[in-house]
């Protein structure tokens, strides 16, 4: 059902979608006797917005955790940037250029917004312990350089006023935005968003959708997201994977998926058209 040319192409709204960035090949994930993901394959192309949808417990979050390296698949291979990914720790995956946000916000509550976003740049900061201890030379210079990058992101996401506020004091919507800022600070090649709009009101959802599109557009970041709000998913994404009970039941453009009988049966219920 997923017929696409292997080469790059240009979408209707003028964005260029490149070749395959990440490919999941026959991924299976088991916890003891429970099979969370069963033999799923799909790919993510450079520059596209890829959505994973499915009912609760379908294994979407587990899939995202496999991509971000938090879970190691029981079977199957993860290909990233043309090479098979060896067994590695999550922080090594992050260094390959995969950043993510979390379903239940995972900000560092004891730190300010600025510090939180600065943690996103930890993968790129190289000054040694000694230089940091005397706060001279490389450490200070590096700090300033990275601060500039972070300030750009702060401007981009319009959170200048809360820069020095402890994140614990922020309302939910802003926390989500700070989390996005932290992920963006890593300048990822692949950005994973775990239900970026969960629990938001309409206005906040619109803001967040705009930010996601802008990120994709301005930085050319490849995005994979999980989302419950069907309207949002269909509007935002270029291609959609549909999961149910740990299996893949559909894959294609929003229109293709919307009209796929298996998907309608399993997830969308009766079509409203």
């Amino acid at each position, binding site marked *: 059902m997923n017929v696409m040319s292997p080469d790059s192409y240009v979408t209707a709204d003028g964005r260029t979608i490149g070749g395959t960035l990440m490919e999941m090949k026959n991924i299976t994930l088991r*916890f*003891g006797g429970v099979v969370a993901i069963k033999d799923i394959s799909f790919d993510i192309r450079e520059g596209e917005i890829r959505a994973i949808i499915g009912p609760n417990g379908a294994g979407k979050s587990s899939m995202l*955790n496999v991509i971000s390296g*938090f879970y190691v698949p029981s079977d199957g291979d993860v290909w990233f940037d043309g090479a098979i990914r060896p067994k590695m720790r999550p922080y090594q995956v992050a260094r390959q250029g995969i950043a993510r946000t*979390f*379903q*239940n916000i*995972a900000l560092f509550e004891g730190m300010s917004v600025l510090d939180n976003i600065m943690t996103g740049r930890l993968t790129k900061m190289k000054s040694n312990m000694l230089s940091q201890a005397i706060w001279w030379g490389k450490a200070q210079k590096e700090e300033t350089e990275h601060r500039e990058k972070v300030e750009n992101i702060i401007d981009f996401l319009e959170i200048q006023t809360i820069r020095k506020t402890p994140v614990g004091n922020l309302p939910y919507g802003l926390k989500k935005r700070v989390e996005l800022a932290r992920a963006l600070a890593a300048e990822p090649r692949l950005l994973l968003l775990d239900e970026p709009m969960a629990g938001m009101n309409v206005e906040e959802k619109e803001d967040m959708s705009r930010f996601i599109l802008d990120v994709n557009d301005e930085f050319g970041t490849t995005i994979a997201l999980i989302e419950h709000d069907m309207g949002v998913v269909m509007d935002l994404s270029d291609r959609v994977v549909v999961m149910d009970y740990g299996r893949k039941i559909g894959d294609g453009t929003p229109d293709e998926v919307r009209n796929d009988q298996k998907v309608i049966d399993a997830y969308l219920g009766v079509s409203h058209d």
Partner: protein
Amino acid sequence: MPDQFLYAVEVIINGLMAGVLYALVALGFVLIFKASGIFNYAQGVMALFAAMTLVGIQKGQIPFAKLINTVMGTELEHFPWTVPVIPAIILAFGVMILFAIIVEKYILKHLVNQPEIILFMATIGLAYFMEGFGDIMWGPEIKKLDVGLPQGGSFWIEDMTIGLGGENFYGFFIDKLDMVATVVAILLVAALTIFSQYSKQGRALRAVADDHQAALSVGISLRFIWVLVWSIAGFVALVAGIMWGAKSGVQFSLSLIALKALPVLMLGGFTSIPGAIVGGLIIGVGEKLFEFSIGPLVGGATENWFAYVLALIFLVFRPQGLFGEKIIERV
């Protein structure tokens, strides 16, 4: 049978009995941890305080005598009476219940929803407070605790086993007090298990342990449960205090039994009653056997740290403890 082997057997038997006592103290920790998520460092000081209170009541000591004397210039010391063992134990238990109520009312209630580590530190503060309080109330001197438990080695067992070894083997030396302590500890563990499995309060206790919020929503009073578990822990402390106090006197070092129970908890897990028992036995036997076999080579007194190092090494290979399920981390 070679004597060396028999000595080792004797060490193991003594280790098992020490282990039962460790398990008893660990049990007090587990109860409170399960019901309130509090790692109660004060458990050891509670045992000391309970034992001091028992001795004080038995002898008819006037509480705070020295403080009153210093401030008022009086010469108080003893009431003109002494109290028999059984009523004294009941009274001491009453004091521990009162203590539980005070702890709930003035400390726990105000620390709801704080991170576990804050609660833990609060109990360290509580331990300090009680240590000073106990000394002011009953005086700091070493006290002899006598509740009529048998003392000394059992000649009967020595006579029965003397024939097993060579002529330098005089039979197993086993302290009668240890045997009594073992029986009492086993009874107490059994009683607590039955209580928590079959009584109404026990069911409420397990509900609270599972999920505070859910327990509240079905009408269980959290505050009552807390008073209840702290009272039970107070009782366990009293029993442990009696056993250890009868053995080596009521003195500050008694509060250090809490430190003996900590590695037991690491092995067995903070929430598992069977874990506390098995862990206690492993540690008891392990440290006695280690001291017996390796101790002489390295200067002895290995009991101070052996349990900790054993638990540490064990946890590195099995972080979920003896009976815990494999931890699946989530984000």
